[in-house]
């Protein structure tokens, strides 16, 4: 059942358009794919002349809440997972995105925008795994 009280289609769509614009700019201006896991992972495999733009992009992401907070109050984030679960989840996300060559941004946004069948398979796979995991954690385990 859809929970209409928490449904925020307009801000979601507006944020999506901004994300799509940023991904488009990185592609056209810098000639790069805005895949966060790939940009971050590339820093762990440093190559000459390939480090600065990656670090700058990640720096921009990390700095963005400070800039946002100058104009508007930051929306609160509710992180229910405890520390052990966060460590496990982080390890899975880190290793999985590198093994699968992408995450929500690289496969989900950029790959689907390129109409790449490879990205579609990846997106279906990580969405399905996400649905199943939440189903197990929220409805089967308790």
């Amino acid at each position, binding site marked *: *059942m859809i*929970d209409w009280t928490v*449904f925020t289609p307009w801000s*979601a*769509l*507006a*944020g*999506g*358009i*901004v994300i*799509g614009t940023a*991904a*488009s700019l*990185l592609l*056209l*201006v*810098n*000639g790069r*794919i805005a895949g*966060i896991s790939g940009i971050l*992972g590339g820093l*762990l495999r440093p190559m000459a002349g390939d480090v600065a733009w990656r670090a700058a992009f*990640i*720096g*921009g*992401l*990390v*700095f*963005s*809440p*400070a800039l946002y907070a100058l104009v508007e109050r930051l*929306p609160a*984030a*509710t*992180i229910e997972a405890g520390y052990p*679960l*966060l*460590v*496990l*989840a*982080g*390890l*899975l*996300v*880190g290793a*999985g*995105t590198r093994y*699968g060559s992408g995450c929500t*941004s690289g*496969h989900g946004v950029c790959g689907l*925008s*390129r109409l*790449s069948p490879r990205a579609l*398979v*990846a997106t279906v*796979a990580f969405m399905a*795994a996400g649905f199943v995991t*939440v*189903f197990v954690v929220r*409805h089967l385990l308790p």
Partner: protein
Amino acid sequence: MHSLSAFFIGVLFGIGLIVSGMTDPFKVIGFLDLAGAWDPSLAFVMGGAVVVGLFAFRLASKRTAAFLGGAMQVPAARHIDRRLVLGSLTFGAGWGLAGFCPGPALVALGAGYDKAVVFVLAMLAGMALFEIAERVLHGRSR
């Protein structure tokens, strides 16, 4: 110049994530919880981003160089293999456990959440483990 533009595009990407609601793991898990009180908002994030991206990637396919110079670095891989599927499934499981994917986790880290710091450190460790495994198993050092 490449780094300067990457920084500002990173800021824009982060602001898009904040506006969209993706930086709140509670909202992400609400989207992944099909069997519970489902919040379909995040489908609008990806939809909005992909609609913009479709134009950019069409435009990019006609160009050989980025605006700032240098080649357009668009992935050439087209094959759908075990790495892609297993990696994406692993990522999706981690995403469902904590509600964080790489981009939003970096933004939440910037917003000062201790739990996001822990998640990002674990994610970097997962990426590093992948790099080490690659080198040990395949002797790759691209």
